[in-house]
């Protein structure tokens, strides 16, 4: 199979195109995803290739758009809805949580709601508090939804294609700073299963469970620590609901130390759940140290660039945290 370098955004676009080629019931909807190409140029020129009926610009009505996606899914389509920023999904929670997530269950399993919603998320762009949130933990708290957060171009392509195939609603969190990241991506359509974590780096001394952009920061930290003789295992969670607990337990049994690195607000962010799952699992007895969480600051994301950096985990902080964890200085 031929492999090229693509950016994360290009990998998404390729997945969307291949899904539309394979299945006429797939269509895209969102704000400015047509001729504008999307706020982050993810849909790019797809409207010219697939037409306005399949790459639909919608009025600025997030709640309505989400409801339209639910209705279209119930009636046999496979909508892929792009929120321009994940922050705006706060307007659509009713349809996402009360309708999309619950309809199948409430109706006794007699319907499917095969839709995908894409959420550009995260900080680092200087867009301040209302355009920089990481609300992935909210949706990972909701039964009925599946939530993925791929960290590489290859993963987003394969997992997005799996999401579009999925009979249930799948929420896709994409970190804005990853859109321009390059990586090798196979050309043909392929699927990467939802619900499987990925060991991005094998190590003996400490297990790091990271999500999205924090996977890369953790790998960077791991490289530095390797020079100090600290061997870090980095697990890319990839799916926030359902969580692949088995892979984490197995790793912690080997390393006896666990750290969770995530951008969302530390309190009740995804790291809280990872920590709690290990603390209640058989891996608890293998733990030689407290479970470290490095998450976002307990504040909105500030505008000033230095403050903005200080609001989420950065490589130096991860290095220090892991070093102390391994050296038993917590």
């Amino acid at each position, binding site marked *: 199979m031929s492999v090229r370098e693509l950016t994360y955004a290009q990998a998404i676009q390729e997945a969307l195109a291949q899904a539309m080629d394979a299945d006429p019931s797939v269509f895209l909807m969102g704000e400015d995803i047509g001729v504008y190409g999307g706020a982050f140029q993810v849909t790019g020129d797809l409207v010219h290739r697939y037409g306005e009926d399949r790459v639909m610009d919608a009025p600025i009505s997030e709640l309505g758009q989400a409801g339209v996606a639910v209705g279209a*899914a119930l009636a046999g389509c496979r909508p892929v809805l792009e929120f321009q920023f994940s922050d705006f999904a706060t307007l659509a929670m009713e349809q996402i949580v009360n309708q999309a997530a619950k309809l199948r269950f409430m*109706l006794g399993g007699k319907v499917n709601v095969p839709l995908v919603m894409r959420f550009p998320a995260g900080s680092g762009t200087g867009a301040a508090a209302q355009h920089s949130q990481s609300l992935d933990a909210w949706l990972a708290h909701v039964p009925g939804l599946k939530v993925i957060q791929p960290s590489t171009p290859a993963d987003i392509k394969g997992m997005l294609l799996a999401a579009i195939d999925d009979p249930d609603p799948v929420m896709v969190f994409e970190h804005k700073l990853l859109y321009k990241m390059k990586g090798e991506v196979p050309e043909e359509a392929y699927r990467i299963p939802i619900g499987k974590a990925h060991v991005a780096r094998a190590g003996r001394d400490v297990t790091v469970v990271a999500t999205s952009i924090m996977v890369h920061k953790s790998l960077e930290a791991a490289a530095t620590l390797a020079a100090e003789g600290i061997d870090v295992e980095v697990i890319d969670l990839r799916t926030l609901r359902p969580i692949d607990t088995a892979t984490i337990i197995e790793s912690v049994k080997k390393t006896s130390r666990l750290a969770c690195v995530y951008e969302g607000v530390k309190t009740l962010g995804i790291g809280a759940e990872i920590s709690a799952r290990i603390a209640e699992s058989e891996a608890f007895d293998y733990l030689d140290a407290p479970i470290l969480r490095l998450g976002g600051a307990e504040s909105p994301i500030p505008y000033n660039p230095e403050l903005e950096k200080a609001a989420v985990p950065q490589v130096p902080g991860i290095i220090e945290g892991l070093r102390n964890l391994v050296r038993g200085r917590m």
Partner: protein
Amino acid sequence: MNAVGKIKPNARPFYQKYSADQLKEALRKMYLIRRFEEGAEEAYMRGLIHGTMHLSIGQEGSAVGATMALRNTDYITSTHRGHGHCIGKGADPKLMFAEFFGKEEGYCRGRGGSMHIADVSTGNLGANGIVGGGLPIAVGAALAIKKQKRDDVAMCFFGDGASNEGAFHEALNMASVWKLPVVFVCENNKYGMSVSTERSMAVANVADRAAAYAMPGIIVDGNSIADVEEAIAEAVARARRGEGPTLVECKTYRTRGHSRSDRNRYRSKEEIEEWKARDPIPHFEAELRAHGLATEAEVTAIRESAEAEIAAGIEFARLGTDPIPSEVTRDVYSNEVAQ
């Protein structure tokens, strides 16, 4: 088929286009709805049903009149007050009762209850516990219809109170901009729970809001099945022709309280009595007799057969299968997912 000859040529279209049998079937549905809700109410009083329920007694004219113009492949989205829409679209009362009783035989296998009854096989995408929740969903179903090049329609039921939700605005705007086959049916029963339309909106009619979406806004007497059906039939035809959505406002009234906990403090006995006197069922019966389409004896037979069906439905439900508590997470997902 037309009941030619039997009916005066000067009779209104409603009585021309349907056969006597079809019209009597409509009356029967109105009775089924009425008796279904009375039966559910009684079962609730006797502690056989828990939770809450919202009765549409007094609104059967709009439920049956609106759904008469639909086919099985058309969709409806319904509301918390949706028993009438459900039966109108063709649901089986005994399976609805089974749902009320929380049984596996119920439409939602006991998971949904009154506020979530759906019957996908008849195009009923479901009642909704969220006021206004069904509005954008109906628009989405209509979008799918258009994409699939079908000439079906999506009918969206909602109340006067729901028209104050942002979802109403967003849904009607998108339906109109995209010229989708939706018929928005507002059952304006004068109150959103305890708040009258005078206190919740500045315009006199919900239909007055249609202009904001360049959409026709039609007002009919919701207690006259003929008025409702004729207006809806035109809106449905318009939608099937690809000419876009219509808003039809049915002026009606719920003679029961909002839900089980209502003490009717916000309205007068007189108002309730006045509307009871405008009950859509006797009104329709009288017209059927006046047009010579049904005899007193036939009407009695219809009423009794509806009552018998309801009684049998309750029995069926009582004897249904209880879900297994350990299966609580079943059907959260389509494929079993380890959580």
